[in-house]
């Protein structure tokens, strides 16, 4: 919620165009991945990075809520035990990553904050919005509700791994063609989700929209697409165009 609020505030300023361009770049990921340390993934522009601005804006917004949080029944924090980072090997987009992670680090945070892959987005961070959707061994999951340490040996695909080099995947091209996003924040999750959604439909997987689960044939109807993409929220309401992009790609 907070992030959307900050984005709204940004678009009311003159930052609209750079923001859109930056999101476009992250979303479509046509730039080759650059190896660089975590926290250093932004293009510096006049000393203020979009990422840095967002972080400080979020911090400021959080600070204004502090009295409310403190008013609640929050017991004083006892000296919490600490469990140091340990080596975790992840296979992300076909590349090996050797990271040092505390066990509590989610897959989403490992991707964004440790592997420097900020294409996967943090929306709700509670499994309710789908912005963090990635593929694990080809299956779509919410990376915010999964511990990175549990994914050693898995093949993880993020939005950065969907395109073939400079060549957009068909679903990415369809999102452009059908205008399937506005702010773009949900788009990486929508696209990863759509890739798996189409695989599931081709495999004959049933959904709550299927008239009879005993029958294996699945119609590629809009109703099926809507139900199967319901794990990805779009605050801009681009749903009709998202359905059109998935429909066009699944029929291609």
């Amino acid at each position: 919620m907070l992030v959307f609020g900050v984005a709204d505030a940004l678009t009311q300023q003159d930052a609209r165009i750079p923001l859109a361009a930056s999101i476009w770049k992250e979303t479509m990921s046509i730039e080759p991945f650059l190896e660089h340390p975590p926290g250093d993934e932004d293009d510096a522009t006049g000393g203020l990075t979009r990422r840095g601005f967002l972080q400080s804006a979020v911090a400021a917004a959080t600070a204004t809520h502090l009295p409310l949080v403190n008013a609640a029944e929050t017991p004083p924090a006892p000296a919490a035990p600490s469990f140091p980072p340990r080596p975790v090997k992840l296979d992300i987009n076909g590349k090996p990553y050797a990271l040092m992670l505390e066990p509590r680090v989610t897959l989403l945070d490992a991707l964004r904050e440790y592997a420097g892959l900020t294409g996967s987005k943090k929306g709700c961070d509670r499994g309710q919005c789908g912005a963090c959707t990635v593929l694990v061994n080809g299956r779509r999951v919410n990376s915010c509700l999964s511990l990175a340490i549990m994914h050693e040996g898995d093949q993880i695909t993020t939005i950065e791994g969907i395109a073939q080099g400079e060549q957009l995947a068909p679903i990415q091209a369809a999102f452009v063609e059908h205008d399937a996003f506005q702010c773009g924040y949900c788009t990486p999750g929508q696209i990863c989700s759509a890739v798996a959604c189409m695989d599931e439909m081709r495999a004959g997987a049933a959904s709550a929209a299927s008239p009879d689960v005993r029958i294996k044939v699945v119609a590629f109807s809009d109703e099926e697409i809507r139900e199967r993409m319901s794990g990805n929220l779009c605050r801009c309401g681009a749903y009709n165009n998202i359905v059109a992009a998935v429909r066009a790609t699944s029929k291609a």
Partner: protein
Amino acid sequence: MHAIDFERARDAGHAVQLAQQGNTKFIGGGTNLLDLMKGGVEQPIKLVDITRIGLADIVELPGGGLRIGALARNSDTANHPLVRSRYPLLSQALLSGASPQLRNMATVGGNLLQRPRCPYFTDTAFSMCNKRLPGSGCAARDGYNRMHAILGASEACIAVNPSDMNVALTALEATVQVMGPGGARAMPIAGFLRLPGDTPQTEHVLQPAELITSVDLPAPAFTANTFYLKVRDRSSYAFALVSAAVALEISGGTVRQARIALGGVAHKPWRVPAAEALLVGQPVSEARARQAAAKLVEGARAFKENRFKIDMAQRAVVSALRRAGEIA
């Protein structure tokens, strides 16, 4: 999220052994546990990863039943050919819950243990919740209780079980297989899940360090005439206001056996054998369906915001019976 220790279990016995340390929890899909840990509701010191201990297979049992490994993912269970063809009610219920992403992660064992979504429980900003802070009171009784129980509630707690799967498993009379420090045991799901009573802290009867190993389904008696109807605030990806799992065994136009379980109305799925008996020995009819529905909600007690559920639950049952009995 607070700092946690983590260890990977090699097999079920190892998992049980590791869980005997204090304040340790098993983690499978993690979809409910990590959510609650982020909110500070669950505060384990150590997690034991049980995703590499096996127990994810779905196999036929001697006698025609089906064993669903506790680590089988919800999506794999819903789409298993034997579940789709023999237990379509379970497949339908699973597919109506959560999102494809969450179903790909969530396990059957974890789904059984899903914790209620009562906001006074899941948000630690609220100081009153007997489930979270025993003895502190129930803020939902006089609070926003639109999603809450109309049956089986207690002075201490009016939360409802959020699982769709549990409603279907209750109608199908599944058995929960468990292993723990004291050995293995099995219990019917109706005895595994519990009403809140004076101790709403838990929704089930698992003992510390006990691990669910499988959910066993009896031989399929209900394949042709079942239906899971879920009523919710949006058409997908939302918890039930009410839901109805119905299963009929019909031969020669006559109902031989009937099961009805209601979801979204109590701390566990709600069954009333006397309501089911009203349907047996005759064709499915609208009139009988209404009588059965009325019997199911006998003794219902509404709170300020959820009176609508008493009617809604009955309409859901009638509608599901109509669909299952093909009298639409």
